[in-house]
């Protein structure tokens, strides 16, 4: 008997396509307007953004690992973690990514890399300490789904024009401040009694940036739902990811696991690190609210006929 596949959610896929369509439409309009307002000046700027995007895309694994202070661990250093990743990769038919650890008490994990062959998954020591093996497996499967879904590629494309708009906003501001800017190559008749070109570009860029920001975030949330679904599919047990999510994003995540005396010794006596909270906010941005993710996972669990506590 052929069983129903749980990997697809038609509603989610159509919402994702619709968001992508809106984003594409916005970018086309933006590009057309820009080409009409300032023709030549745009080319070097697009080149810069293309360069940046490619750089980001190609170095995404190394960049993200370095930025988060993660160190790649060998199978000897973290045998259980490696075994878990290998099992999940075999299930999901993925090449094994690099495995990295971040030495921080905040429970968290992320995946990065431009393709499944150049991917890395990283988990924090706080995650390993707080979660049970099944829960860690659920989280790893979620991250591997991001790799399988090619999320780095999708998001790099999605944010390409947002980057351009952001850059133009900045240039527009400088141009306005110093009075020159885009004006060097414009024809005089196109701008005699209207608003200055730099102001128009600035306004359009800000609008484009704002709208694309919302759309990118929406898309990103959809990708999270898709990865949650992928995790449920790989592990066959969404309830473990549910309890992991509760542990990771609930209040409990904030309570430290270290000893007061240890911390005091490290932080020059009594200065308690304040960057802990900022880091969580940063990594959890772009994620849907916990309740919605849990509700979706519970739905999948019911479909699968799994128990939901």
């Amino acid at each position, binding site marked *: 008997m052929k069983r129903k596949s749980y990997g697809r959610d038609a509603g989610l896929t159509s919402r994702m396509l619709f968001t992508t369509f809106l984003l594409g439409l916005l970018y086309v309009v933006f590009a057309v307007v820009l080409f009409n307002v300032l023709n030549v000046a745009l080319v070097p700027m697009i080149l810069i953004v293309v360069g940046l995007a490619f750089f980001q895309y190609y170095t995404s694994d190394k960049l993200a690992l370095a930025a988060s202070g993660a160190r790649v661990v060998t199978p000897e250093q973290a045998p259980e973690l490696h075994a878990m990743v290998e099992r999940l990769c075999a299930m999901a038919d993925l090449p094994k990514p690099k495995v990295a650890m971040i030495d921080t008490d905040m429970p968290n994990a992320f995946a990065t890399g431009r393709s499944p062959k150049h991917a890395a998954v990283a988990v924090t020591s706080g995650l390993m300490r707080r979660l049970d093996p099944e829960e860690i497996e659920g989280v790893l499967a979620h991250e591997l789904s991001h790799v399988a879904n090619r999320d780095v590629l999708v998001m790099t494309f999605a944010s390409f024009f947002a980057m351009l708009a952001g850059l133009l906003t900045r240039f527009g501001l400088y141009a306005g401040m110093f009075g020159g800017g885009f004006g060097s190559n414009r024809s005089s008749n196109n701008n005699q009694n209207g608003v200055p070109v730099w102001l128009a570009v600035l306004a359009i860029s800000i609008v484009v940036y704002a709208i694309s920001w919302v759309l990118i975030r929406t898309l990103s949330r959809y990708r999270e739902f898709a990865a949650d679904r992928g995790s449920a599919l790989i592990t066959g047990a969404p309830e473990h990811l549910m309890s992991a999510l509760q542990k990771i994003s609930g*209040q409990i995540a*904030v*309570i430290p696991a270290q*000893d*007061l*005396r240890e911390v*005091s010794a490290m932080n020059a*006596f009594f200065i*308690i690190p304040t960057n802990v*909270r900022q880091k969580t906010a940063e990594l959890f941005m772009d994620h849907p609210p916990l309740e919605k993710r849990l509700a979706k996972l519970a739905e999948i669990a019911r479909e699968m006929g799994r128990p939901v506590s």
Partner: protein
Amino acid sequence: MGIFGKSKLKQPADERLFALTTAAVTLQVDVGLVFAGKAALVFKPLSASAFDDVVKAADELLDSVAHDSGSKVTRETDSFGYEWVIVGDPELEDAVAGIHLLASELEQQGFGDRLLAALFRFKGEEHPVYWVYGYKAGVFWPFVPTGGQERDNAKELELKAKLEQELPIESDLSKWFGMFDAPV
């Protein structure tokens, strides 16, 4: 005020230590926790003879007071190099007063910055419940170790929810550091 006569300029942090004695009723009625007869002051000693003298003097003072109230006072150094003055007394009021006396003595001699925390042990659950009082911020937070480096976060949050009205509780959960293997 008898023994507290010296501290006319009361430190705000110290005043809040006594909130625990008022909260004791709620702890017993609502949560079923009673004072386990053990409390401790934790501080980092200075390797200066002036500091030793002050600690010795404070100790003697505490001993004489303890003699009157029937408390037992012992000292211990832990693996982190912190000094523990442990006050054993069945009455929470006496234990709090003893800790306060010692702490304010150290503060008055200018060593207030060496104070790390005060610990009060409660019983009535499967695991011991500690109320940790951080001297720098003058706030309490619950700590429920369950063996090794593990702690019962759910229980701690429940305690916060139930005691919030009566105890000044550290609102920043990321500062709820544990005191594992506490000798009390």
